[in-house]
């Protein structure tokens, strides 16, 4: 039993023992407070390793090619940001590069470090720091938005010339699913439970318990 405050409404409540794949929601505002994933560290690690490989493919293989009047052109993700830069939109190029390449890469690297470090307790303090950085990268890594953007661009250009989807586009599609799977199978609490404390003190055991609604897993 662990007492937590809801991150969205600050209500104190106890998290009961959860059945596998169960979820604890805040009894007042409905925010998810805890999940009980099976294999809390191994599964996200396997998925993150896969994502790392797919990410390299997505960033090196061409996203799509264009053929018009006997000429062929193709582009990659970085190529898109680069073209923005050289055509005079440097700041936009930086934003695109951050959301499309840097944030997803950062998320993968930080998560890999955290998950590898978490395999051998006690988990060092710096792993917590890395986890915090992974959390900062997460909202900015926009694989799924980019995927839809590529599709819309593809359809728009198909009106003008003949276009063909490349391997990079399928890799981006795979990344969308891998990132979603990492987030579902991973609960940061599993790492925080194992991490070495900054000052070695014991956590205070106070607060009024409040029953928490439990959702059964599928």
């Amino acid at each position, binding site marked *: 039993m662990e*007492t*937590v*405050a809801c*991150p*969205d*409404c*600050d*209500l*104190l409540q106890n998290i009961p023992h959860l059945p596998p794949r169960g979820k604890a929601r805040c*009894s007042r*505002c*409905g*925010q998810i407070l805890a999940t009980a994933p099976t294999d809390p560290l191994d599964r996200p690690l396997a998925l993150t390793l896969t994502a790392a490989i797919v990410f390299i493919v997505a960033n090196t293989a061409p*996203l*799509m090619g*264009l053929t018009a*009047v006997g*000429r062929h*052109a193709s582009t990659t993700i970085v*190529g*898109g*940001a680069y*073209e*923005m830069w050289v*055509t*005079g*939109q440097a*700041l*936009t190029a930086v934003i*695109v590069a951050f*959301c499309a390449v840097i944030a997803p890469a950062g998320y993968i690297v930080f998560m890999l470090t955290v998950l590898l470090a978490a395999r051998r307790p006690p988990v060092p*303090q710096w792993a*917590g*720091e890395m986890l*915090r950085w992974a*959390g900062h990268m997460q*909202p900015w890594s*926009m694989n799924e*938005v*980019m995927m*839809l*953007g590529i599709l*819309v*661009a*593809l*359809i*728009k*250009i198909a009106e003008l010339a003949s276009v063909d989807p490349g391997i990079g586009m399928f890799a981006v599609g795979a990344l969308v699913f891998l990132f979603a799977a990492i987030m579902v199978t991973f609960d*940061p*609490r599993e790492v*925080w439970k194992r*991490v070495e*404390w*900054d000052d070695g*003190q014991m*956590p205070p055991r*106070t*607060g*009024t318990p*409040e029953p928490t609604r439990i959702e059964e897993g599928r």
Partner: protein
Amino acid sequence: MTATALTAAEAGLVSCETCALLSRPADVTEPGYCPRCGAELVWRRHHSIQYTWALVIAAAICYIPANLLPVMTTTTFGSADSDTIIGGVAYLYTSGSWPLALIVLIASVMVPLGKLVALSYLLITVQRGSLGSSRDRTRLYRMVKIIGRWSMLDVFVDTFTVALVQLQPLMSVEPAPGVLFFAAVVVLTMVAAESFDPRLIWDSGSTKEDYHG
């Protein structure tokens, strides 16, 4: 939902925003650092309302040029043609792909506007100390956080169109200044959503004055 429910702040406990550990700070005015992860402890995010308002206003200002200025220029056989966001939507509609036109219209025009309205509504109700429909307002806040990223769609569409259509001298596409304002709206509203503290929605008048500083 009991009326006697106690929040961490009311119990004198502070929840770490990074690792969710509850701790009882020795000094109420200065909670210090989390004993587990070392992050700075705060009762409520610092100057949450002021920062969020500043970012929302900045985003609202950028929203105007983002919609009025062209986002890309298409040059075909020497003649240039500029498109705004709405122009792009109209182009998709007339070229027969109305579902895509609808997606772009929602992601590029309605989502950013909806975010600005939603954040302003949350800020005003928190400032007025409203306590009604707190649950719905928290849901609204979560929705703003989830759907906000989708407005980046048009920036990606422009990027990849520009990157691919470079067939000089036949046809080429170049980005226009509108795209920068548009990306700025998305970034500013995303940072605004992060700087807003949803716990303020639930704080009663007395707690609010103590903690939202």
